[in-house]
């Protein structure tokens, strides 16, 4: 708490804070003349400022090396009752629907073909990857993603083959809006398990919504075309992915004492590691 207060006080002494207030008052005045609106608007911007402020003082002390031992911190799970229900729902859905369907699909379609389907989806999903690399000012990666899309869509037979990597050595740089938010200092927030979508956090849910909004089809065709197309795409993508990782859960389950806890921690650690990666390159 004291660190939060210190951050607030520090934030208010910064020039950009006063600029924010000045802008917010002007904007409030512009939007509506009333004093109340002005106050609310200023308060909202203030809140935003103190949320973003910690990103600018990112000189937190690194944890000491070695095993954390008995002083290890564990993260809270305020949504645990909801999350656990959703987790078991997803597990059952996987067991009775997704896994059997993916197994049958894997039986009829040979692996190289399924890998090509995976490549195809990877290729059409290039917009959020390119955009988020751009948002994080990783120009080479962003340009690389656009180039990859161009090369794979043409020479790679519409994205079925990742020739940009195998012929030109252009690696894919995975990125998403959750990581962009994290890159600019937004904390992960509570852990959330969504039905169908699986593990996430508050930040990554916002990120997922933003990335989904970058899917271009709904902007060009009416909703009754884009909605079924989008749903179909999501289903095929999920089945294809599962068919390429058929013992995904079985492996984790074999060594887990508490499967929910294992998946939760795995997700949190993986995302933290990804964020560390993109912040260091």
């Amino acid at each position, binding site marked *: 708490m004291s660190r939060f207060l210190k951050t607030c006080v520090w934030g208010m002494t910064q020039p950009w804070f006063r600029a924010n207030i000045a802008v917010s008052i002007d904007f409030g005045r512009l939007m509506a003349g009333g004093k109340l609106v002005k106050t609310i608007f200023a308060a909202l911007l203030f809140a935003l400022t103190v949320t973003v402020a910690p990103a600018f003082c990112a000189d937190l002390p690194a944890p000491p090396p070695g*095993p954390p031992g*008995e002083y290890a911190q564990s993260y809270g799970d305020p949504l645990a009752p909801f999350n656990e229900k959703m987790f078991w729902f997803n597990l059952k859905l996987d067991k009775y629907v997704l896994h059997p369907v993916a197994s049958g699909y894997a039986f009829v379609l040979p692996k190289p073909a399924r890998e090509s389907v995976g490549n195809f989806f990877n290729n059409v999903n290039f917009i959020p990857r390119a955009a988020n690399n751009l948002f994080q000012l990783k120009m080479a990666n962003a340009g690389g993603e656009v180039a990859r899309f161009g090369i794979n869509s043409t020479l790679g037979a519409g994205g079925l083959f990742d020739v940009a990597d195998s012929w030109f050595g252009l690696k894919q740089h995975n990125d998403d809006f959750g990581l962009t938010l994290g890159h600019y200092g937004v904390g992960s927030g509570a852990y959330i398990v969504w039905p169908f979508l699986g593990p996430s956090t508050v930040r990554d849910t916002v990120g997922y919504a933003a990335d989904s909004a970058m899917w271009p089809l709904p902007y060009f065709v009416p909703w009754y075309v884009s909605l079924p197309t989008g749903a179909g795409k999501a289903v095929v993508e999920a089945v294809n992915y599962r068919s390429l990782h058929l013992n995904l859960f079985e492996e984790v389950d074999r*060594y*887990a004492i508490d499967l929910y806890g294992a998946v939760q*921690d795995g997700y949190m*650690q*993986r995302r933290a590691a990804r964020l560390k990666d993109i912040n260091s390159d």
Partner: protein
Amino acid sequence: MAVTQTMVNHALQIMADKNAPVQQRRRQLREAIENEFDFSEMSRSALGYHWRALSPNQRSQFTQLFTAFIEDAYLSKIQDYSGQQVQFQGQTPLGQGYTQINTAIVQGSKSPISVNYLLLQKDTTWKIYDVTVDAISIIANYRNQFNRVINEKGFGQLMADLQAKQQELASLLGS
């Protein structure tokens, strides 16, 4: 540390030797790993703050069980082994008395899995206190699982669950 490299290479040899009886390979593998891991540090770390609430007796019981569990988990990898190669990619020092050995498991055309060993110095020897797979710390992962079980059902239930899982893994290995 050279000892870790020797241990991993030795373990790979044992795993690759498909002709030797399972019993014999288990014994060899157990001998190869038991002196390289710091099981008491792993146990303490995996329980986190709950460690402080335990009696010396409970601590040693847990350490014993968790050690058997980790050994069997490692040994059960024998079945999955199909000739993957381990590349040693040098060390990252983690400060005085701590280091990390970076390896990658190469598996054909698929992208390699990074497996890193975290070591601490005890007197003159280096011992492994954690392993990360794809940047996920195994001990931290168990800490989250154990914390949940203890908070919801108590330490007794954790011991029972751990024992059941260990026996499951042991039976998987064949006796």
